[in-house]
């Protein structure tokens, strides 16, 4: 099993979720994060003082997926979240040793 972490632009969330749904991903966990990378934030002026945060709002998805569909999940995210603009984000894939569904206690792939 794989644990996939994707950082995307917030407004792409709905599209990505729909696309993942259509390839059979039933669940995911979402959090709001700040991203720091090549994409630079706007220079802001607050009361005459310039500042640029460089920390841009991003959305992080965490998806546990079976090995079969992991590659497809990555590809789907990559194509759907893509805007060809800097700051589109990253997808990280980690190995997932085990998974448990709290409600039933089921473990392994059936827990996903």
């Amino acid at each position: 099993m794989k644990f996939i972490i994707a950082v995307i632009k917030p407004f792409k969330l709905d599209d990505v979720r729909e696309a993942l749904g259509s390839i059979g991903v039933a669940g995911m966990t979402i959090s709001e994060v700040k991203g720091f990378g090549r994409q630079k934030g706007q220079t802001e002026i607050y009361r005459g003082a310039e500042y640029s945060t460089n920390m841009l709002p991003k959305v992080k998805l965490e998806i546990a997926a079976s090995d079969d569909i992991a590659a497809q999940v990555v590809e789907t995210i990559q194509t759907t979240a893509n805007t060809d603009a800097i700051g589109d984000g990253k997808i990280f894939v980690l190995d997932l040793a085990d998974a448990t569904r709290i409600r039933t206690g089921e473990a392994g792939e059936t827990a996903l």
Partner: protein
Amino acid sequence: MKRTFYSFGALALGGLAAAQPALAAPAAEAAEAVAEIAEVAAPAADMVGGGTAYILNTLLFLIGGFLVMWMAAGFAMLEAGLVRAKNTSTQCLKNIGLYSIAGLMFWVIGYNIAYPGFDGSGWFGMAGTIYDMQGVGEADLDTGYSVASDWFFQMVFCATTASIVSGTVAERVKIVPFFIFVVLLTGFIYPVVVSWEWGAGSLDAMGFSDFAGSTLVHSTGGWAALVGAIIIGARSGRYGKDGKVNVFPGANIPLATLGTFILWLGWFGFNGASQLAMGTIGDVSDVSKIFVNTNMAAAGGVVTAIVFTLIRYKKADVTMALNGALAGLVSITAEPLAPSVGSSILIGAVGGLIVVFTVPLLDKLKIDDVVGAIPVHLFAGIWGTLAVAFNTQSEVDGVTLTMGQQFGVQGIGVAVTAVFVSAASAIVWLALKHTIGVRPTEEEELAGLDQVEIGVEAYPEFART
């Protein structure tokens, strides 16, 4: 009712009569005339002298004026609460800016267009440009009140009109074109409409009646907002394919609630001080009655909106209750004095119903009204204007209109306002659209206007979007 300068040439009847302004409703007028005669017969000690009446009339304008000024804060909070967090700073800026601009424009030119000195009829006139406030020490008993207090009171009404527009077209209009629209709305469009009725123009001559501005203020703002919403288009992503309405919930409901309470409070000034005088016991009693009716119409709007949404949706959408209060207030504004308390509740309740029905309707038409200003100010404003006919019939050339005739006249008032304000607003919005542009780019809109236009996030420490 005319909001004209009236001069007290004939002080013969003494201070009491002198301070008695023309009354709104002939029916009421007759009744008061009787009362007046009784009063005149009372001991002289009970009369209110001209000086005292002047002070009290002025005080009414001042209190009413600061209450209506406070409504600017109400609109600001209502709108700040109902937009998304990423546009909140912009909405705050627009509101404080539009209130300021309205004041400047109403002084530069607006007042003198609104009160052009029509002689019983007219559609456009000017009594000059910059309004000449009376100088210090030039207080004149004959005017019956301080000229500056009257100007102040009129000015805050002008600002209200602009506030209405800002709510509807929020989250997608850049600040510069927005402010340019406000300049023209407050300096020209609104004053022209006012001149027809309060400025003793042609609508007034026909017997049209709009006590405190359901049409003159609220519908004018509403038409400008509606036309703006159509020309500018909906917020990016608001209407999906196959008629799907994407919900963009307001970021801060308590602020919206606060805004509504502020508006409700301010409305006592809006309607109450539109009596224009409290220098007689008749006037101050009328003001009191207006307070009661105004309050009860709002209460009727709230309760109706709650009951109705509970029945229809099984939930009581608080934003609908807030809109219901405002719709009740707008509905009673055209005639807050003549109706009985019961009628006032009914008039407000219908206003509340209108809102809960027409808010989703606008969405069906893909007209994107962020705060519900079109249902509240335009639709309830039209309703309130027409409902005047039930309770008051004007006297035209010495003949009192029938209820049917009054309906007709009220309808004419609604119609000419619709045509003029829509046309004028369309010209301005279209001109802006095709010159400097009205909307930010889609990317900017997604990022939020606060980032792009203001540079200051509204809630930097917890906004998430």
